[in-house]
């Protein structure tokens, strides 16, 4: 029960960060929101795998961390020097 409350709180904060991504005036604000959204999803996966005792779900968290790293670095390098695209 106490794990459910923690996961609901984390999901509501992820929703607030989604609002920040929609409101962000430039593309760097949206990138910052994407950078903040990925640790929250990792925390949700870890809490769910702790709650149900499934160890193999942690591999999904590792893959998600590496994918967010690659995507954010390539988008930031692509936008650099070209100004505001979106």
């Amino acid at each position, binding site marked *: 029960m*106490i794990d459910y409350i*923690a996961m609901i*709180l*984390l999901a509501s*904060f992820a929703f*607030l*960060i989604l609002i*920040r991504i929609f409101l962000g005036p*430039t593309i*760097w*604000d949206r*990138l*910052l*929101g994407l*950078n*903040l959204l990925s*640790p*929250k999803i*990792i*925390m949700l996966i*870890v*809490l769910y795998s*702790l709650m149900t005792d499934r*160890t193999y779900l*942690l591999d999904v*968290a*590792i893959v998600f*961390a*590496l994918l*967010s*790293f690659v995507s*954010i*670095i390539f988008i*930031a*390098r692509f*936008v*650099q*020097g*070209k*100004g*505001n695209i979106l």
Partner: protein
Amino acid sequence: MRSVAGHILIYLGIFFVMAGTLGLFRYRNFYARILLSSQIDTVGFLTLMAGVIIRSGFNFFSAKILLICLLGLIISPLNTHVIARSAYRSGYKLEKDDKNAP
């Protein structure tokens, strides 16, 4: 006893995440927001993972979570640095009439 300490650490991490998320809407300056993002990325993340490790004990599960902690500790400051560098090099200036600037 161990379970209670784990629950307290998990909720402390959620409190840090809440502080960082509310700070995203509080400041109007981009570089202040990018400074606040470290609060979510490292402090809240590591505190919550420490709570999960204490609750699960010392086994294969906690070793995997330790790997995720190491990965997050390397990746999150790198991401923040790359975003701030991209914004600065592309000419994203500070606003002039900003009362909330630190």
